[in-house]
């Protein structure tokens, strides 16, 4: 009995893998379509919420959403196994080259904005840091909380895995302070945790920890220990929120993307247009992300 859905699933996977251009069904209106959506773990909850709402409004469309990381999503797009790749970082020149070699032409759409919140344990008295201080903490120059005006405790640095777009963005924008010539790396003893939940859980129970994650992933009990960030010591310390991202005063915010193979057509085009509509962008705000416009 159990084997039947499994076989269906497997054959579905095989079909989508060999199809070359999955989801692009005949253009005639009203036909059902199957859209595969994969990538960034930052976006996955948002993409799921969108897919659920869209499917209730368009019962003929089915959308499958999976996470795995921005790199994973883009790799899947390059390999032709998904229709839409979610990414919390822009596609790299290397990836574009690989895509072209595979006959894929990635097209980018900005679907929402996101702030990266830096968060510490509620017991930790530190509530404000400059970008330079955060960079020094993560590159291993500051190893004790006394170095930034906190208690005498070792600093435990938490980060997402290297396949996470958030990781790459944090490296470029915070650790390297946006300087492309800077080659500072994460301190080797930075814990690379495979999920947002892993980071939140460790920050919640460990007073030594510092972590970063998309604002939408910070649970209410940690909202009070989100770090206010200043560009330099003299500047204003800003807490991440929809307002501070939209007026560009919070320095660690970024765009979130979807990538398709070529300009989207048919069901995929309709879906992406809907995502950019006010109705879908309201879901963005509900989940703690920052709507575009």
């Amino acid at each position, binding site marked *: 009995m159990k084997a039947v859905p499994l076989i269906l699933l497997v054959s579905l996977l095989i079909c989508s893998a060999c199809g070359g251009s999955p989801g692009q069904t005949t253009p005639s209106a009203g036909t059902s379509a199957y859209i595969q959506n994969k990538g960034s773990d930052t976006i996955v909850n948002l993409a799921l919420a969108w897919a659920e709402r869209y499917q209730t409004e368009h019962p003929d469309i089915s959308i499958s959403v999976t996470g795995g990381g921005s790199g994973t999503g883009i790799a899947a797009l390059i390999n032709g196994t998904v229709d839409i790749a979610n990414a919390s970082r822009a596609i790299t020149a290397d990836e574009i080259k690989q895509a072209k070699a595979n006959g894929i032409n990635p097209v980018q759409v900005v679907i929402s904005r996101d702030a990266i919140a830096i968060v510490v344990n509620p017991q930790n008295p530190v509530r404000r840091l400059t970008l330079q201080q955060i960079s020094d903490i993560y590159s291993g120059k500051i190893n004790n909380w006394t170095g930034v005006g906190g208690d005498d405790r070792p600093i435990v640095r938490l980060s997402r895995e290297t396949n996470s777009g958030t990781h790459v963005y944090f490296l470029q924008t915070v650790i390297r302070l946006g300087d492309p010539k800077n080659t500072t*790396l994460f301190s080797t003893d930075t814990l690379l945790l495979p999920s947002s939940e892993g980071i939140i859980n460790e920050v919640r129970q460990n007073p030594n920890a510092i972590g970063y994650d998309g604002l939408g992933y910070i649970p209410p009990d940690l909202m009070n220990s989100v770090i206010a960030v200043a560009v330099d010591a003299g500047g204003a310390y800003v807490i991440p929120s929809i307002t501070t991202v939209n007026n560009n005063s919070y320095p660690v915010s970024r765009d979130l993307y979807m990538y398709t193979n070529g300009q989207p057509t048919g069901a995929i085009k309709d879906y992406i247009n809907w995502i950019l509509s006010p109705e879908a962008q309201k879901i963005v705000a509900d989940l703690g992300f920052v709507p575009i416009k």
Partner: protein
Amino acid sequence: MDKSPNWRETFVTAIVKTCGYSAVVFVILIFFFLLRQGLPALFEVKLGDLFTTRWYPIENHFGILPLLTGSLVVTVGAMLIAIPFGIGTAVFLAEIAPRWMREILKPLVELLGGIPSVVLGFLGILLLSPFLRVFLNLPTGLTALAGALLLGAIAIPTTVSIAEDALDSVPQGYREGALALGATKWQTIWRVTLPAARSGVLTALMLGVGRTIGETMAVMMVTGNAPVMAIKLTSILSPVRTMTATIAAEMGEVANGSTHYHVLFLIGLILFLISLAVNITASSVIFKSRKRAERVLS
């Protein structure tokens, strides 16, 4: 009518033979696949760069030493836990526990082996690592020790189950002989029963090691995955990154055919070779001990 059983015989023999050979064929095929995908890494990354201490593949730092030492620390730690506990439990079940208790305990131990490792990983994150941090006053509980404890717990059921079977199959006459010569219960176990069951017990330990080296999910969840060199004695109390966790965490992201992809396969190849070495050592030890036993008996 006369021929039909013969035909059946050939047919069944052929099937059984195919099954037997297929295991060998699969192992060889996997080995060649790993070679094909992993060896290019040796040409793309200089050997000197491969054996450095920095693992940061997205910026082309492919030093695999931290991963090797990380796996080593976690595996050795797990074995230090699993060997005494596993053999102790097996001896208790086979030699000391009364029949009724054994009939309850053994299925329970085997049930422990049925718990998915990802569930143990959850317990590790939520209970074990906070406990270790507070109890040992560590910066973080996500350490090699947490991984070793979980892996020990994963290896113990396999070890216990097989070692207990081996002890159980030692003929009763051996024990009676030892007791008749005036040996105590402990002397009988240590000098007679355990040595007699040696090959089975060793097999149990090797299967336990095998599970430990290859286990991924639980380790990835609790060891913190920081690629630091684990060469000090205190490394067991610091975060490490194992080879299996590295492959699991990074395989999904890499582009097919890139250097990073080849290096990950090279790590897989190294894991394969380590398992092979462990198995060959184990079977040669068992073989030797058997030969000696045969010599003694003849």
